[in-house]
């Protein structure tokens, strides 16, 4: 974010991606509208946003696949117009199915290994290691087109990692991957980040976004909010909510409102917004609930709130 401390000497040195005021239109549609992002090296950065908000377009811009209408963009210290020089260091997993359906898993991986000049024993070792990681080792000679959605995504990730890139661009990589394996992915990503690999990921899944160090929320080509998941929740003005099951919700609600609490009755349950944890006791002294639960706001709530604001 703007207020962050930037290393004095060469800012791009410690940022994998520096984007300033990116503009891109397709016809009349402004897909990137003054978009600025800085992604530090060795971090996981999650781009979130509704469909059509420009996430894929931004990733394509970073990959050098887009002619920008304006703005500055550098990737791993290289200006975007010569980004092909650092292609050997980028791993790009596209949103659509980019592998060859008529090749086997091994053949697909050999193709991508070959493009990066990896061959011989090194290649074979790397392939089996990666397929092991994505739990596809048993399927190595199957035809790619016959894989299930989740298996395909896993293979696609393995192909993207074949050359051990420094910057990973993952466009919705976990679609169709089951939660257990997704957990394994994230542990693997954490391992990569420890080795200073930068991961830019787009996803629709909030729980995944919560695992990223930084989340950027895009809408209509703009960055609406950016920060750690916690920061974003605070930014959205979200507070924990205390849910109380009581005998007479209306009466309890009025009594709490009289003391300045924000109260809502949802399906016979009191929802009290907690501004300050010190006042919990005050509530519990007033009413005697049969049951209660403290609900922390989710990132989803935060984005819901943020996009409502964005619309206004």
């Amino acid at each position: 974010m703007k207020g962050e401390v930037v290393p004095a000497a060469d800012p791009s040195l410690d940022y994998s991606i520096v984007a300033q005021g990116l503009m891109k239109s397709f016809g009349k549609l402004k897909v990137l509208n003054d978009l600025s992002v800085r992604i530090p090296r060795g971090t996981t950065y999650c781009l979130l946003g509704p469909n059509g908000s420009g996430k894929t377009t931004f990733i394509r811009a970073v990959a050098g696949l887009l002619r920008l209408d304006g703005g500055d963009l550098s990737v791993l210290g290289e200006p975007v117009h010569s980004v092909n020089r650092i292609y050997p260091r980028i791993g790009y997993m596209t949103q659509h199915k980019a592998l060859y359906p008529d090749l086997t898993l091994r053949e697909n991986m050999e193709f991508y290994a070959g493009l990066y000049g990896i061959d011989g024993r090194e290649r074979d070792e790397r392939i089996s290691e990666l397929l092991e990681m994505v739990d596809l080792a048993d399927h190595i000679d199957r035809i790619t087109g016959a894989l299930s959605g989740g298996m395909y995504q896993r293979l696609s990730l393995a192909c993207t990692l074949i050359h051990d890139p420094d910057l990973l661009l993952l466009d919705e990589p976990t679609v169709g991957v089951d939660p257990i394996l997704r957990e394994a992915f994230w542990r693997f990503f954490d391992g990569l980040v420890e080795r200073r690999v930068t991961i830019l990921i787009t996803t629709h899944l909030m729980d995944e976004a919560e695992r990223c160090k930084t989340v950027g929320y895009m809408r209509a080509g703009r960055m609406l909010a950016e920060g750690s998941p916690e920061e974003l929740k605070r930014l959205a003005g979200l507070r924990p909510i205390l849910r109380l099951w009581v005998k007479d919700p209306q009466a309890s609600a009025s009594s709490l409102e009289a003391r300045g609490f924000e109260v809502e009755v949802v399906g016979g349950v009191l929802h009290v917004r907690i501004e300050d944890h010190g006042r919990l006791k005050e509530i519990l002294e007033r009413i005697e609930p049969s049951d209660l639960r403290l609900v922390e706001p989710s990132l989803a709530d935060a984005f819901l709130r943020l996009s409502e604001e964005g619309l206004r």
Partner: protein
Amino acid sequence: MMGPTINSKRVLVVARRVVRQLKRDRRTIGLITFAPVFLMILFGYALSGEMSGINLGVVDLGGQDALRVHLQAVDDFDLLHLGSESDAERLIVEGRLHGAVVIRGEVVRVLLDGSSPQITASVMTEVKNGLLPRKGLQNGEGRGAGGELGAVKGGWLGGDGSVGRVSGPGSLGSDGDVGTSSGPGEYSDVMAVPEIVQRYVRGYDLEMMDSVGPAVLGLVVFFFTFITAAISFLRERTQGSLEKFMVSPLSRPEMVAGYLLGFSLFALLQSATTLLVVVLAFGVPMEGNPLTAFGVIILLGAGGLVLGVFLSNFAKTEFQVVQFIPIVILPQVVLSGVWWPIESIPAFLQPISYALPLTYSSDALRAVMLRGAGVSEILVPDLLFLVGFFVIAFGAATLMLKREVG
């Protein structure tokens, strides 16, 4: 920017992938190898008949109006107006004309294929009639002269070895040029003026397949390489693999070169089978070096392939690729002299003919197969044009890949 350097290892990686994909695609392999054979056989049967009527070239350099009018009035003559005597000679050698009449003032030269006595007689009779004072003109005396031509020759399949055989009277040069028997023959006795010079050009039995075969060979190979390359490359784009491997060290020229190499294996196979069918099954002559003919076909196929890659940029679906056929293939079928000489195409369309690769491959293949031409004889303009076409299409294909990026 992407340097012009080409890493041959990466080209091989792409080629290997293309081969692996095609190898698994039985139907396409079948299409590549057998469809041309099938097509050639179809053409072969369809074209195995003799030409009806007599195809006579007219090189009109002025004079002898009566003769011209007379020749036009003969029903059995299909006249083709030509610019020069050498054009006429070439077309006779290629079996596309039975003969030609060159009118130049006081001298009338008659070039004849010489393989059929009936045609020789009929042409000479009509030329003589045309030069006589008007009297016999309207009575249809000369009509029907070529009427029985259909029965003249047969045996198109399993060739009887008659192909390329020198026939007709006169002494014949082994270089395929001419045998001349000029001067006062029996015909010139009839008229003192003008003089008729009769000349035999070494031609073929007029089986259509002989002259059309070499050209169709090119057409078939061009068509199949074009269409398979265009569709495969379109798939790269629509399935997103193009986008993925563009973000890799693979440069665009390497990508196209890899495609070319991978496909060339199959193009070789295809050219070989088609060539074999044309020569062995249909007895189309192979006077020249088969490797030279093979080289021409490969060069043309390479051009078709990169053109396919280039044009695939303008299609969004396979269906749209198919829509290129009437645009790219049909004009070549009609205008490149496969069926009839370019000289017979209306003048305003001829510039298009001379911009089509098939025009040059047909010319080169006829030269090699029918006239036994060597590389040096087809270098200009045929090979030069085909190489130029390939280079330009290759450049356009790589440039287009660059532009494709939004």
